[in-house]
């Protein structure tokens, strides 16, 4: 039983990171209809920036993460303005190809700037608690709390502010929003900034929990898309539920079946969900 709870706890921590990545993907998809494949490498760049700020400038972890989120948001704005906007009226596959190109570019730039070695972001949260046999590392608790805070902050922004209302309007009906005087291009920029900032937070947390390495961006974004499929494309609650399910099922698969095949099992879960609920667990019909 303790063993099971342990795996669930570990799964929830990694699931929190998947959720952060997936929320960024899902708001971009739900509002702009873009499958933002470059989201993962943007998140990784943010992770590298966090690492750099902590190691070279001695900035405390959370401050470094905030600054990296700012850098990530700017990167997101640039990506939207110069790469996606020129093709916003073309077929969706074009935006996807752009995303692939961006993935290669940003991956190459990361490699050039930060080198091919694995890097672990150092954090001050190293203590370990033992709750009746359940090993709870402080870092994992911080990861989950940070994720929860960011999600609440984002929901507050989207539901309570004027900009948030504009975002929701564009998501519901783009043409009507334009007619009501919403600046759709500005909304697209805000959405990309928000999405990239959340992604960067995910990148920094995964860098602290596991490690940063070339290629991790792609694997993160693929997990993020799997979460989207599980929860339903464009649904934020779906991304939360899907992320936690993916994280927990991966951890259970690694613990009880085989750690080499944990990703296979995670994807099988996704395919089974798709068979019975093609619109995702919380997606709309």
């Amino acid at each position, binding site marked *: 039983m303790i063993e099971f709870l342990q795996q669930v706890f570990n799964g929830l921590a990694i699931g929190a990171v998947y959720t952060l990545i997936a929320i960024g993907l899902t708001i971009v998809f739900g509002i702009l209809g873009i499958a933002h494949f470059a989201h993962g490498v943007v998140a990784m760049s943010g992770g590298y920036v966090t690492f750099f700020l902590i190691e070279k400038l001695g900035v405390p972890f959370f401050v470094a993460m905030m600054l990296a989120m700012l850098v990530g948001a700017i990167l997101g704005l640039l990506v939207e303005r110069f790469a996606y906007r020129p093709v916003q009226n073309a077929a969706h596959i074009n935006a996807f190809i752009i995303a692939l190109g961006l993935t290669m570019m940003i991956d190459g730039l990361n490699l050039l700037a930060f080198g091919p070695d694995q890097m672990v972001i150092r954090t001050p949260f190293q203590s370990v608690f033992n709750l009746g046999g359940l090993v709870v590392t402080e870092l994992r608790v911080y990861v989950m709390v940070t994720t929860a805070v960011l999600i609440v902050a984002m929901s507050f922004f989207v539901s309570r502010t004027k900009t948030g209302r504009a975002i929701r309007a564009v998501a519901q009906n783009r043409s009507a929003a334009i007619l009501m005087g919403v600046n759709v291009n500005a909304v697209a920029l805000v959405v990309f900034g928000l999405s990239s900032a959340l992604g960067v937070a995910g990148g920094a947390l995964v860098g602290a929990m596991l490690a940063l390495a070339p290629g991790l961006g792609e694997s993160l974004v693929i997990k993020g898309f799997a979460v989207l499929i599980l929860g339903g494309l464009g649904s934020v609650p779906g991304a939360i539920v899907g992320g936690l399910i993916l994280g927990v099922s991966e951890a259970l698969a690694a613990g009880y079946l085989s750690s080499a095949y944990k990703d*296979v099992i995670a994807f099988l879960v996704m395919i089974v969900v798709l068979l019975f609920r093609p619109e995702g667990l919380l997606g709309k019909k």
Partner: protein
Amino acid sequence: MSLVKSHFVWPVLSLCALALAPTLVQVPYFLHLGILALIWVIVAQGQNLVQGFTGYVSIAAAGFMGVGAYASTLLTTKLGWSVWASMVCAPLLAGVLAVVVGYPSLRVKGHYFAIVTMAYNLVIFIVLINFSSLTGGESGITGVPKPENFSVFGMAVNFETRIAYYYLTLICAAFATAVCGLVLHSRVGRVLLAIRQNEPLVDASGVFAWRYKMFAFVLSAALCGVAGALYAHFIGFLNPEPFGVDQSLNAILAVILGGRGTFASKIVGAFLVVALPEFLRVAETYRLIVYGLLLVLTTIFMPRGIVPLLASAWYLFTSLFKKR
């Protein structure tokens, strides 16, 4: 007459050109790239069946290539089959797998389909890496045999030589292109095009759209299987690396870069995805960055692909002279 002309003149001419190419260019390196490019022509044709005709973007081409490559290799090395027999069997196995995985995934559309097929590719990749008792894991399988020699009209054909292998892949690529051309101009092809344009209408007209989608998906997987087998027996060394998701993305690129159409655009697309990375090797560290940048710029400024762009440029050029 003009219909026949437009359909056959260019294919026959370019086939002749490709057949003569090795006698003109005798640099082994270029011949090597030529063989790879012809293998990619097969992949591009397969990918085009699903992506270009049917409008379903599959990200599993490299996965099915991997299935074909490993199936053919294992049948020869473990079971002692002749290379020819296993090369025929490889696409069948890839096709059977496509039936199994196509059933759940063809129920979903658009981005869902793309992501699910990408998951398949990942699963295949993970299995190839981890099932090392069979696949040799990351270190791979060395000494994949070349096809057995045989003699045609008293002339011995030795597949250890690049030139013989070049013609073998050329025949396969031509065959794949012909099959895809025939499919496109048949009733099946028209249904596939209709699915791309309006799938609910196809269903409403009493046509079982999913059967046609399945056909396209399976044929595409089988073509990728052929390409994988050709690749394995050509390189002689097999590891999972060339069958990852990034290679599937290359297959999508081969279809997009060339532009719409089955013939010239796919050949140009395939040659580009093989040649560009090689060409950019000069730039070394900047290779990924330049390649990515090229992709972004091409999609923004040449959204129709390269062949239609050249065709309209050629049309402008000739009309300039006609007026005088």
